[in-house]
């Protein structure tokens, strides 16, 4: 299946392990990735709040690029998903905004007709690829692992633009996937909460406490690891975890996996191929539970 692949800045920046693992699982999932190399950053909501017209034009350009490919746009980041969904929704709903965005990108030879569907890899697994196909590719069951899902705000809220009113089941995909891969999903309050990353630059200690509290809660419920479809959450939960432990004066030490890394392990790929040896918090303990070394 052909998809217009939007990897997002972070998978090409501070989370290279996400890009590597996402491209590694494309083949077993039957995804033909056409990467939108010329598409700009979504602005992560920051540009939308300060200059909605600019953000409409930039995201309208990306949506038009996918439309020209005649394929659904696939994200691997909850934040990219949220921002692109939001602009797509408003451009589709408001002809005035659509016209203004199109007037701006027309000079660059693009026009957005409003037909692109924006879908996170997590949604595609259930809605396009099919969960049977995912199940058929499993070579290594993750039996024995207790895994806590961590969605990231922008793949859950606001519900209108993300299509969660029509498809409320999107709020349960991570738990269902964890169970499908043979592991046990951990139920805890933090799974739908905020990792704190958006505040990290303004209010560092509070942002670290916010994310750290959620990991500690998952750990107390027995989680061996957290899995997230959002690399920005990963930056806070993994990248800053030692600092969060310092702020909270409590040992944390829970590894955070990207969604494609978890799928890759189940598909029989080796931890190094998924760059699981390039995390701030060691993944060793969790991998040993499924008899893997890193």
């Amino acid at each position, binding site marked *: 299946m052909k998809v217009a692949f939007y990897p997002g800045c972070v998978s090409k920046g501070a989370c290279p392990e996400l890009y590597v693992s996402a491209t590694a699982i494309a083949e077993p999932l039957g995804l033909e990735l056409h990467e939108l190399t*010329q598409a700009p950053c979504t602005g992560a909501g920051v*540009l939308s709040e300060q200059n909605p017209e600019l953000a409409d034009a930039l995201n309208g350009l990306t949506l038009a690029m996918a439309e020209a490919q005649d394929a659904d746009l696939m994200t691997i980041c909850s934040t990219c998903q949220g921002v692109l969904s939001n602009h797509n929704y408003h451009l589709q709903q408001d002809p005035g905004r659509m016209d203004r965005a199109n007037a701006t990108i027309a000079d660059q030879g693009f026009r957005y007709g409003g037909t692109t569907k924006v879908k996170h890899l997590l949604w595609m697994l259930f809605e396009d690829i099919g969960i049977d196909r995912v199940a058929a590719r499993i070579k290594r069951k993750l039996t024995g692992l207790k895994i806590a899902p961590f969605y990231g*705000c922008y793949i859950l809220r606001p519900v209108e633009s993300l299509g969660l009113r029509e498809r409320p089941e999107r709020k349960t995909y991570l738990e269902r996937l964890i169970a499908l891969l043979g592991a046990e999903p951990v139920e805890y309050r933090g799974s739908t909460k905020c990792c704190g990353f958006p*505040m990290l630059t303004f209010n560092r200690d509070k942002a670290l406490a*916010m994310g750290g509290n959620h990991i500690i809660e998952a750990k107390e419920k027995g989680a061996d690891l957290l899995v997230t479809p959002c690399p920005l959450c990963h930056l806070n939960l993994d990248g800053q975890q030692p600092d969060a432990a310092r702020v909270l004066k409590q040992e944390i030490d829970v590894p955070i996996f990207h969604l494609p890394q978890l799928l890759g392990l189940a598909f029989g790929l080796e931890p190094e191929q998924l760059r699981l040896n390039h995390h701030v918090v060691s993944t060793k303990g969790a991998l040993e539970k499924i008899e893997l070394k890193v």
Partner: protein
Amino acid sequence: MQFTIEVGRYNPEGRYADNAIPGEPFPAPWNRSPVRRYQTYTVDLPEHAVVLDALIEIREYQDQSLAVRCACRSAICGSCAMWINGHANLACKSKLQAFTKDGKTRVESPPSMPVIRDLVCDMAPFWEKHLAVKPWLQNKQPIPPPDEEYRVPNAAMEELIQEVSCISCGACLMDCESFAVNSEFLGPQALAQAYRYTGDPRDAETKERLGQYSESGGIWDCTHCYECVAQCPKGVAPLDQILKLRKLAVDAGFTNNAGTRHADAFAESVRDSGRLNELTLMPKSIGYFNVIEQLKVLPSAFNMLRAGKLPPLIHHKIPGLKRIKAIFERVGGRFK
């Protein structure tokens, strides 16, 4: 129809959500509230019954000691906001059937607020924040006074209808992620009201308001998680109003804060490379001369470098960058 209700009951020694003492750890709000005891009741009610019907049924016919605050039963008075299955909702607006999970409905006082008794939390922090934003019109009296009432164009008030719909139930604050770790934060309800008065053409203190809201604890302390938008029973969408205030504050010149520096650094990076430059975003947001804050970031940067998780030192530009530059040139405003 039979419904099972699990009610969180408390001893009356509620503590404030964020009693964070400088230098002390930030415990999660649910660890911080007094130990709760869940008591299970079974009620027989029609299938369209709401959570509040069940609570009144329990109080009237099963257990007089249950404390619950309610009044209008019509989602107008805002008295009965509480945690239902882990999220703030109005008990009078939540259908029991929709909120039955694993055969029961769990109802409790929100752990981010002080508790008076059982389901009754102390709304004092809520009202303190509400008052702090000066939720009233501050008009300058013209001399001589007008002959008739002040007239406001219809369109100007239509813009504010959403914020005026607030019933002060506190559901947004009860689920606010920033408030859970930061008692100083004014919170979604107060800031939505702040926008309601800032945006009112009859108010004469717009600039002073925007200055106040830009300070610590104000608009830049929001973590942008949309919980308030999800929980508000009246469609006020507080986060949207906070974002409007951020734009108004920046446009009014209140730019000496990390929030504005972050937005500027972000826009600059997208304009000049089409992508986010993670390497320069953090130091630019903090401000290069803020040495103490810069030093705080170093251990994490070092950890990430050691793990091979830092972005490439030479920041790559996307192909076709001239398109992005042209878009900025056309509609970039102050980011040109």
